[in-house]
């Protein structure tokens, strides 16, 4: 029975992917992609990865969808059929891609059995972090350097996006530019955020011991902020504002500072003293959640579109 369900899900995912590849209209493809992201979230629950399922649904489907839809609306006036790849080229590409997929499928089927796993190692080390969710332990303890560098990647992407503003607008505010704000949207933007913030805080808080965590919570916060900006209840802030920048770097800075403190307290970079590991990690997560929310929101908002005020 579950096999049937899995098969249906996989077939649906592949059908949507093919639809995205073939359909003419970009908006149609993007809407299909959002659906794809949500279904994929369901797929991740079937793989027993609830943390990933939440992240995929929130970021993969949700925020990426908003970003792409806004881009499509922006580009729509200039729709012109670009130089299409020749028929022969397409066939050749299709063969090459099919070969890659087939090679990959063979490799997936040839994975050794029993599968090599770090689950026992992660479980053994879990008590010394004070956490209950092993994924959070991997992200913030065992492989904390990955997470720290990935935060820098997020900030760098934002620097890159901001650098695309014309010189005289740089440092100004981005604009989400809805043509009209329909009544229901404004209503939603007033009602939903309190719930949304509550859910985000909950997600971040349970993340230490149950599925959830900074990314998921941060994304929900970012979504609430975007909703408020889209409904024009609050304008997007000027990108040069110090308060904005401090929120952006707050999480990574605290992470890095505690990392360096590890030299003094726990004998190494990004090492936590066992007795206070959990409060330190939760503190880092709290700051990261805010920073992620700000970064994601500003990434969607894009480069500055109004000149900075005096």
């Amino acid at each position, binding site marked *: 029975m579950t096999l049937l369900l899995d098969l249906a899900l996989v077939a649906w995912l592949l059908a949507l992917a093919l639809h*995205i590849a073939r359909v003419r209209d970009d908006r149609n493809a993007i809407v299909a992609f959002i659906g794809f992201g949500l279904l994929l979230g369901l797929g991740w629950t079937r793989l027993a990865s609830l943390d990933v399922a939440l992240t995929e649904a929130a970021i993969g489907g949700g925020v990426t969808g908003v970003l792409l839809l806004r881009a499509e609306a922006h580009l729509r006036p200039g729709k012109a059929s670009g130089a299409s790849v020749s028929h022969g080229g397409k066939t050749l590409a299709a063969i090459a891609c099919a070969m890659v997929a087939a090679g990959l499928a063979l490799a997936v089927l040839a994975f050794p059995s029993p599968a090599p796993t770090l689950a026992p190692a992660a479980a053994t080390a879990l008590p010394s972090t004070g956490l209950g969710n092993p994924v959070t332990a991997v992200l913030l303890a065992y492989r904390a350097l990955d997470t720290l560098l990935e935060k820098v990647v997020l900030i760098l992407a934002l620097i890159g996006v901001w650098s695309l503003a014309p010189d005289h607008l740089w440092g100004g505010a981005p604009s989400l530019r809805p043509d009209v704000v329909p009544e229901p949207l404004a209503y939603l933007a007033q009602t939903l955020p309190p719930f949304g913030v509550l859910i985000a805080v909950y997600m971040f808080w349970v993340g230490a011991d149950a599925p959830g965590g900074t990314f998921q919570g941060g994304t929900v916060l970012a979504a609430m902020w975007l909703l408020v900006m889209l409904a024009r209840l609050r304008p997007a802030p000027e990108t040069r504002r110090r308060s904005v920048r401090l929120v952006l770097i707050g999480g990574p800075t605290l992470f890095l500072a505690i990392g360096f403190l590890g030299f003094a307290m726990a004998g190494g970079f990004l090492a936590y003293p066992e007795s206070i590991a959990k409060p330190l990690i939760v503190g880092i997560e709290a700051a990261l959640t805010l920073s992620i929310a700000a970064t994601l929101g500003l990434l969607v908002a894009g480069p500055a579109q109004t000149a900075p005020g005096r």
Partner: protein
Amino acid sequence: MTAAWLGPATLFGLCGAALVGIGLFVVITHPGLLRRIVGFNLLGAGIFLVFGAVARRGAGAGFEGDPVPQAMVITGIVVAFSATALAVALLQRLFDLTGRETLEAQPEHLPRSEP
């Protein structure tokens, strides 16, 4: 062996392989840059599913999956989103400056399959 065949790990792993193929095809052949960006996301989703299959297969020690690849996927999703945001911003800027949303005189670049 048959049990592994029927399990969601193998099934979604194969689904990931197919998604990689489809995403790669969109990235290589589609003339529109926005669609290529969507293609990159499909390709990424496929790769993450392969990680997911690996994670599910590695269940043990009371966990339903190996947490290490799961954490890698979460990191990967965030990086993929950053890439999408940067690409979209570049594309919009290109459009504002030139009024087009394709790379003109785009030379064909089939990625060669290396050994």
